[in-house]
């Protein structure tokens, strides 16, 4: 078995798990459109890096984090909703992405880098990348474990948590920054247009299984890991785009979770 294949599976386990857990948090906090715009910010950052010949991860991370920081104040300044601002920025980032891609020196659309940017590639999974994923996983688990009491209060009811003195803004920004970092890392294997499959499909699948909140986050992690690993293995074996394979794997797992949930409900006492 080649080193590339083993790296793919390890990378998939971490990247998918991270995305699943972050997606569960973002969907619960209704930050989905914000995460959407951050993902496309990361895509635009990567495209700019490609055009400038700079490091893709650094610029993608910078764009995603800058977006997370400025979304709230921008919405306040313009007096409009966060969702609307997020979608406005999403359009801007898409426009910039295409301009940066076209501005890339040489026959841009034919390069492996562009392919990696748009639909992901297992070639992105190198030992350094796995080290980044491992570090991000440790940070997220430590953050959730340390502050779970306050985070759970925010997840239950933001307004009530705020009324009880929890610094909701700080925790929300921390979660958005984590989401930005996670999306930037996942982007390399899923590509910019399919990163949401790893963010939200595992969360949607775990919600079918009716677990506790901790259970939903853990299940999203597991389903995300499984989706990414299976998808990357398919990509490796059949030479298909990594992002597409991950999306299909995630959707199959979601269909299985849904079928299990329906079966469980039909077998529950009191049903006839």
């Amino acid at each position, binding site marked *: 078995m080649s080193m590339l294949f083993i790296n793919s599976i390890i990378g998939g386990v971490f990247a998918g798990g991270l995305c699943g857990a972050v997606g569960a948090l973002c969907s619960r906090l209704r930050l989905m459109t914000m995460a959407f715009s951050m993902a496309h910010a990361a895509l635009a950052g990567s495209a700019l890096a490609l055009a400038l010949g700079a490091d893709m991860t650094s610029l993608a991370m910078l764009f995603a984090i800058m977006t997370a920081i400025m979304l709230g104040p921008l919405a306040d300044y313009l007096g409009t909703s966060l969702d609307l601002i997020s979608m406005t920025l999403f359009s801007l980032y898409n426009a910039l992405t295409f301009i940066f891609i076209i501005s890339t020196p040489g026959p841009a659309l034919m390069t492996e880098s562009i392919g990696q940017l748009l639909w992901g590639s297992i070639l992105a999974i190198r030992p350094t990348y796995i080290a980044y994923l491992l570090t991000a996983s440790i940070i997220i688990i430590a953050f959730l474990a340390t502050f779970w*009491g306050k985070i759970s209060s925010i997840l*239950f009811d933001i307004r009530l948590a705020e*009324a009880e*003195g929890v610094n909701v803004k700080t925790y929300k920004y921390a979660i958005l920054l984590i989401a930005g970092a996670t999306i930037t890392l996942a982007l390399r294997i899923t590509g910019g247009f399919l990163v949401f499959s790893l963010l939200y499909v595992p969360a949607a699948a775990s919600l079918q299984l009716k677990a*506790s909140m901790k259970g939903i986050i853990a299940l999203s992690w597991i389903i995300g890991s499984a989706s990414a690993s299976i998808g990357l293995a398919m990509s490796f074996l059949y030479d298909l785009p990594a992002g597409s394979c991950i999306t299909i794997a995630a959707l199959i797992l979601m269909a299985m979770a849904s079928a299990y949930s329906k079966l469980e409900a039909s077998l529950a006492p009191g049903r006839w």
Partner: protein
Amino acid sequence: MEENLGCYAIELEDVSTYYYGEKRPAIRDITLRIPARVLVLIVGPNGAGKTTLLETILGLLRPRSGRVITLGYEIPRMASKARALSSYLPQDFMKSPAEPFTAREVVAMGLASNTPTGRLLEGNLRRVDHALKMLGMLEYADRPFGKLSGGQQQKVLLARAIAREPKLLLLDEPFSAIDQETRSYITSEIFPRLLENGCTILLVSHELNHSYMDADIVIRMVDGRIERVITRDVHAIH
């Protein structure tokens, strides 16, 4: 925890609060001083500004003009300190059946808000169960919050508010889903205990018939203003 209680638990001076984009204030020119350790009933029709008043007191809504001091802390500058000493039961409390947190977890969150990281000790967990027991909800402690009835959800949130041992308890229509027997128990057994422990209670209701309650101050609001204040053996300034 640091306390900064003066003679008054709440002081408002010429306070007007507007909702975003609205030209008309939701509450206007409110001047009110409420002493500590009293039960205050705020009544008035829908849209009178009762909820806005509570949320302005906690700094959840920022007043456009005037001055608010809650438990000795200036709002909104020091709102987090006042909120840490307060409990709030909102009017719109109902959660969907898919809500994954259990009743016990929901009450525990109230205590987690007041610890540096949110981690609870054994003593905190005993307080959680004690509060649930007081409201007759201990047997439902491990059930998902969303699977409880409206009245049960309201009782769990009331248990959460009480478990925090607040110096200020703000209750917005707290009995809207609770049966008469439990209402009487709360007002005759739980409220006096909280008042004895130094808590000030503000209870908002649109109902005018509150024969079951022995309020020290009754404030009637209409159209964003205080129309009338009735006091009993206490000195509230309007």
